[in-house]
């Protein structure tokens, strides 16, 4: 027991989560969007760690581990896509990728 209230941990997680979300919503650069996404995922990982810490079980950390796996895979595929997109569109502007709409 080190006395960190769970609410505070979760609030920090929420703050990071929301900041990540802002990043996704605001940035037009695809790489920045992917980075913001990482922030969001990391925030959820933090939430799991906080919760795991509350219950004193390994589950929280294991979930974090799995999130890490996801983050790695997603970044791998995502960056691959970004490369292809840059080759084809010569831009990283997310807003210009609107060939399909309506």
């Amino acid at each position, binding site marked *: *027991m*080190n*006395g*960190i209230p*769970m*609410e505070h*941990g*979760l609030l*920090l997680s*929420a*703050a*990071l989560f929301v*900041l*990540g*979300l*802002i990043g996704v*919503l*605001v*940035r*037009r*650069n695809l*790489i*920045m969007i*992917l*980075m913001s996404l*990482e*922030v969001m995922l*990391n925030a959820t*990982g*933090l939430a799991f*760690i*906080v919760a*795991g*810490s*509350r*219950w*004193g079980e*390994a*589950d*929280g*950390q*294991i979930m*974090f*581990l*799995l999130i890490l796996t996801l*983050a*790695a*895979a997603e*970044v*791998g*595929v995502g*960056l*691959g*896509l*970004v*490369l*292809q997109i*840059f080759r*084809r569109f010569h831009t990283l*502007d997310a807003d210009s990728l609107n060939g399909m709409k309506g």
Partner: protein
Amino acid sequence: MTLTLFYITSAVAVFATVMMITRLNAVHGLLYLILSLLAVGVLFFLLGAHFAAVLEVIIYAGAIMVLFVFVIMMLNQGQKTIEQERVWLQPGIWIGPSLLALILFVEMLFIVVFGGSAETGRVVNAKQVGIALYGPYLLAVELASMLLLAGLVGAYHLGKPILKTTKTGERS
């Protein structure tokens, strides 16, 4: 003591994240992101998740971020993009999403506050995690490997150069 450290680290994490999402240069943003991740790693340590803290530093801040660095380097974004970013990041663009996110944050605040309070900080060491991982979570490990396989194959495929011979079948 721990509490104080917690708050300071939290502040660092939040600050770093804010800086990250506002940077014009992707590399700067990336550095702030690494800072943020490191700060979170410290928090993990404070929360008693030592194993996770180490992973955060090694894999997240280390391995994954390197991928970003590679890509940014490959794409070789110059000054031009920074100018472009500057144009893109007008305050008008910020307001809407930020307000939305703020509302979400307020909602989460309520959730957390009304959800009930509890203490954290029970230390769960690496051994416990290891036992769980290769005990009840054995299947998860296997599945994670399949997840990574999918990611690997996907990334491999996407990483291929464009086939020059093909005429692109575009439609208007």
